[in-house]
């Protein structure tokens, strides 16, 4: 039964509409030109119950009297409700006027305008992150309506003769704007910050996942495929070092190369190449320059010697950067040798350490005795002092 009743009522027109498409809908049903229906509606509205009738018809008639009803249904409902509400308010005011109950014009219209503006702006009062052009236009329109309303209120109720009143008007308008724009701005700013935080978090997580995949998981896979415990230990050591560097890098920019990071890298090369643990402790740091590079080269050479000749499974490297100079100690507790009695091939290596240091104005001192281990002490001044 409801269906039959509904079938008798024409749908409103979505395409050909001035306000709600009521007139076009009725015209389509009756089969006459919509302009005639509209004229009739205007006459009705001016003389009598046109407005309430129109509202009634709007609410009663179903939406979408066109074939291409691809519009956003939520949007059309919201629009319908909003405009309907406004019309109901207007209708109510007009009705009240009939009984002399309504407040005076100079109060009603400004209040209505302000209400409309606030309504339009509040429409946007949802923490939406991506505000589009239409949002901006609607907010702009709302603000202008509010401003106009407040101005009209001031003009109608306050004498503009006094400067005081002008100031008051400005304060009123400004206050109104702040009232409306304030919360919206807050939401917008909070939204932006929230979005940025989320993006940073997501980036960090993606970074972490990518890194773990490239390094840790690959290493685990490799370790499962090897039976050689030395190889396994070497893989584990390599991975541990890499992960540690990634997690605990001192600098904000992990790619920034300083004495410390370069020294650790040099130690890593020796570890990998000679299957030996190089325990590296660096106190202080300095920027990289030719002197520091020579120092690192000599340190790597000394550690390589220890790996080759000492018979130990670990070497200690201690680097201390002081204000005026840098000291490096490379020490093993292995076989040791008599420094006065060294073979030619090792003399060459030793000279590559000593020669390197001397070219940058540094020194290399080797202390060793058979069975006592070996310690190489490198030192060089820092001409540029504290950097």
């Amino acid at each position, binding site marked *: 039964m409801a269906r039959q009743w509904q079938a008798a009522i024409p749908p409103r027109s979505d395409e050909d509409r001035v306000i709600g498409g009521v007139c076009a809908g009725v015209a389509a049903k009756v089969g006459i030109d919509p302009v005639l229906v509209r004229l009739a509606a205007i006459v009705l509205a001016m003389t009598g119950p046109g407005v309430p009738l129109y509202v009634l018809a709007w609410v009663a008639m179903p939406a979408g009297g066109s074939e291409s009803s691809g519009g956003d249904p939520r949007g059309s409902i919201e629009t319908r409700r909003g405009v309907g509400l406004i019309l109901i308010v207007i209708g109510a005011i007009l009705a009240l006027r009939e009984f002399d109950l309504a407040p005076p014009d100079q109060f009603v219209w400004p209040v209505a305008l302000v209400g409309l503006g606030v309504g339009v702006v509040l429409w946007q009062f949802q923490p939406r992150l991506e505000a589009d052009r239409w949002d901006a236009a609607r907010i702009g329109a709302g603000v202008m309506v509010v401003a106009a309303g407040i101005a009209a209120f001031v003009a109608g109720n306050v004498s503009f003769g006094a400067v005081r009143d002008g100031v008051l008007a400005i304060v009123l308008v400004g206050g109104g704007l702040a009232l409306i724009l304030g919360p919206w701005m807050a939401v917008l700013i909070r939204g932006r910050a929230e979005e940025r935080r989320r993006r940073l978090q997501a980036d960090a997580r993606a970074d972490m996942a990518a890194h773990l995949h490239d390094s840790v998981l690959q290493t685990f896979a490799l370790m499962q495929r090897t039976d050689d415990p030395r190889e396994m230990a070497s893989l584990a050591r390599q991975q541990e070092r890499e992960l540690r560097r990634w*997690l605990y890098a001192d600098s904000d920019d992990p790619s920034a190369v300083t004495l410390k990071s370069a020294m650790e890298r040099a130690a890593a090369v020796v570890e990998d190449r000679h299957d030996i643990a190089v325990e590296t402790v660096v106190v202080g740091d300095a920027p990289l320059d030719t002197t520091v590079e020579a120092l690192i080269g000599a340190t790597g050479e000394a550690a390589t010697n220890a790996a080759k000749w000492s018979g130990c499974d670990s070497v200690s490297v201690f680097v201390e950067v002081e204000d005026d100079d840098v000291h490096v100690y490379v020490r093993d507790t292995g076989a040791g040798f008599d420094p006065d009695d060294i073979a030619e091939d090792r003399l060459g290596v030793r000279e590559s350490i000593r020669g390197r240091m001397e070219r940058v104005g540094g020194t290399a001192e080797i202390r060793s005795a058979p069975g006592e281990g070996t*310690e190489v002490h490198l030192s060089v001044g820092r001409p540029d002092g504290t950097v």
Partner: protein
Amino acid sequence: MALAPPRVVIVDDHRLFRTGVRAELGDRVTVVAEAEDIAEAVAVIEQWSPDVVLLDVHLPSGTGREVIEAVHSGSTETRFLAVSVSDAAEDVIDVVRAGARGYVTKTISGDDLVNAILRVNDGDAVFSPRLAGFVLDAFAGGLVADAPVQDDDLDQLTPREREVLRHLARGYTYKEIARQLSISIKTVETHASAVLRKLQLSNRNELSRWAAARRIW
């Protein structure tokens, strides 16, 4: 020297690590109990009053610091040795400042670990080269130039203490340091303990600032 082997509790959230350490320690120490989180650790330590606790710096529900603080408020004779894979200097310094007698990395050999436990049991400090480096770093740079010279000895290391720390960072044992510096082992131990005490008691601004500058999270 204690006559009986020291009684040890292992606190670490990785069962594999606990098992491995227990096997490596053999019968040179007596492992009386294990724990895998803070609450269990505190309960076990109060129950057994062990001589030494091997304490992981990072535990699932917090840090080793919390274990030390909970137990020390009950004042037992238990001593702590921090064990960690962590290189984050501030974490290590944090646990030592809470009262651990030393810090070693998990890659330490079984023999070295036994020696470290015996040393801690005797009330000495245990500095791995890495911890020595951290401490040198933390006390480096002296005081800020315009600050008044402070009388508080806690805020600075003596040249001799620095010398001992440098040797520790170079990988020297106490015995080797004693020979190198022509002093007795006892003196080396005294210096190391003094450094530990300064690290724990100093309110030096640089220490906290230094830790803050390295905080990663």
